[in-house]
């Protein structure tokens, strides 16, 4: 048993993984989208899910907050636990789950309401803030944590849809953290943004890691390398390889990972 392996084990023993997926199979009608996924996601880390289009990484992401429930033909088997609670089989209401597991989508999708109402929606919905002052404080702190406060503090009443793409995405992140979730899922959050806006979001993700567990799906391997501590490589519905980001990108164990990160396919 070499030293590094020992260290990893020690770390795992110290902190129980936030999310544990065991034998997760997902079917869309007859076709199987995910095959027996086994994945641990550590708390206060950024885990990147990479892989070619259609490999199932977004599907897996959506399993974590049960967004797949909305799709009629979708069927999830297996066990995913969030801090030991089975999110599919323990009678947990998906509404409560989604309050603990926030999500940021590929395309910025602020509600066509004011910036203030966008942020205040979650706290109002879950009855988190009591009273107007507390709600205002929540809105401000969420916007500050998302690095948007300075840019929008004078126009909280103007529509969220009037912001630029990058600002909109940060607004969506602020909206997600306003309910103080434990996990934030991000589904290619920068794919619709320009490089400067992308850089800001990546910086933000790094800051948020302190308080949240983040799972990010990305098409950009550079992004995965920049923001994540762990990377999981999905291919054709299988989880091929998962490990420390540095290690996965420098010395992948699997041929397919090697092929993908060197740009031979994908």
């Amino acid at each position, binding site marked *: 048993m070499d030293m590094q392996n020992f260290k990893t084990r020690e770390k795992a023993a110290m902190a129980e993984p936030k999310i544990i997926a065991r034998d997760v199979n997902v079917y869309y009608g007859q076709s199987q989208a995910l095959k027996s996924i086994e994945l641990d996601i550590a708390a206060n880390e950024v885990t990147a899910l990479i892989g070619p289009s259609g490999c199932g990484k977004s599907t897996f992401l959506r399993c974590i*907050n049960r*967004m797949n429930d*909305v799709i*009629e033909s979708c069927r999830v088997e297996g066990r995913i636990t969030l801090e030991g609670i089975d999110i599919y089989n323990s009678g947990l209401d998906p*509404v*409560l*789950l*989604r*309050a603990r597991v*926030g*999500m940021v*989508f590929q*395309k910025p*999708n*602020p*509600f*066509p*309401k004011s910036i203030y109402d966008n942020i205040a*929606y*979650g706290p109002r*919905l*879950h009855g988190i803030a009591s009273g107007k002052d507390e709600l205002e404080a929540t809105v401000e702190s969420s916007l500050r944590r998302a690095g948007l406060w300075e840019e929008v503090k004078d126009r909280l009443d103007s*529509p969220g*849809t009037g912001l630029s793409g990058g600002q909109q995405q940060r607004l*969506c992140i602020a*909206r*997600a953290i306003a*309910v103080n979730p434990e996990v934030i899922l991000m589904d290619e959050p920068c794919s619709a943004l320009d490089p400067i806006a992308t850089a800001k979001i990546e910086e933000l993700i790094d800051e948020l890691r302190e308080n949240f567990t983040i799972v990010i799906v990305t098409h950009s391997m550079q992004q995965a390398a920049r923001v994540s501590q762990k990377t999981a490589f999905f291919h054709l519905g299988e989880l091929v390889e998962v490990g420390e980001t540095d290690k996965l990108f420098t010395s992948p164990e699997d041929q397919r990972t090697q092929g993908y990160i060197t740009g031979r396919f994908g």
Partner: protein
Amino acid sequence: MELNPPLEIDKALLKKRNAAETRFKLYGLAAVLTAVLVLGLLLTSIVSKGYTAFEQTYILLDVRLDQATIDPKGTGRQEDLAAASYRGILRDALKEQFPEAESRNEKRSLYGLVGSAAEYDLRNAVLENPKLVGTTATIAVKASDDVDSYIKGFIPRDVPQSDRKIKDQELGWLDTLEADDRVIKKFNIDFFTHADSREPEEAGILGAVIGSLYTLAITLALCFPIGVLTAIYLEEFAPRNRWTDIIEVNINNLAAVPSIVFGLLGLAIFLNFFGLPRSAPLVGGMVLALMTLPTIIIASRAALKAVPPSIREAALGMGASRMQTVFHHVFPLAMPGILTGTILGMAQALGETAPLLMIGMVAFIADIPGSINDAATVLPVQIFLWADSPERGFVEKTSAAIMVLLAFLVVMNAIAVLLRKRFERRW
């Protein structure tokens, strides 16, 4: 210069393509112009035929209002004043004006110069100003519909007397009256305050307007909630399976069912089975609601479908339940489209005649309906009834009623636009 030859070839092709484009533009322009022209023609025809209905001819008569005939007891109370026989007074005034009318026939045509309800004009004038009693006053009384038509120029003088509604003798009297400036035209307020009548000069549109309003209120109250809830359920909650497919196909088919079929349904179910009152706006509204439902459901579903799925995902991702997602986000965003669909459906219902014929709303109703259970008629049916009447005076009333109907449609569309603007601003 190897590039040039293909460019040369392209030039010919380009010319052809440009010509085709210009031609297509011209076709489009021609189509638009034709449509505008036809619409303009229609409107001009309606307005030019109908505007005269907003005026009514009155005849000024010197009426001797003797205390002895009107108020023999001299009480001066309104009831006593109202009870007097103004018809006799009016006839005396006419006889005094034209003493040459002696025979029974002559007298009858003399009395026919004024409308059959002209005595009420006189009575109202007295009730308004009781001081007139005991004096000889010049009172304006409504002319009969034939006189009205003649004064407005619809009855030509130069045809043989037998083909004319106004005979030579009456022409002579009217000429004398006109020479004395005793024939005047006033704004026809009665057209907007009276219900239907057999006498064109007494007939008004208010009964039909109120009937239409009651009917549409019932229609809206029934089909808006049912239609919108159906659309929301089918679009947002219902699973996709054979049953929902069947329902969807049937809704689409119902939208294409001829409206008279809904009238038959109303007759069989609402009148015969449930025994609801005949000719009532209640039943009319229910029948029209059946007819309008598919339109509203289809329009609402389209509006709901047009709301981007990303909004639903955003709300669900925030932990909103499906119902919260729909009512906090999707429904408000679809509201403008739903309202447009609803108002279009209501406009269709406003103009509908056929189904109402089946449930007896085609009857001649001389009263303004006071509730949704009273016998009533609606605007399009009123137009149909007047268009069907033989009297010359109803021709202009028909066009005027069409104008009123069009005005209602314009107002409804304006409301639709306003509501849409209002809801859009909230985003």
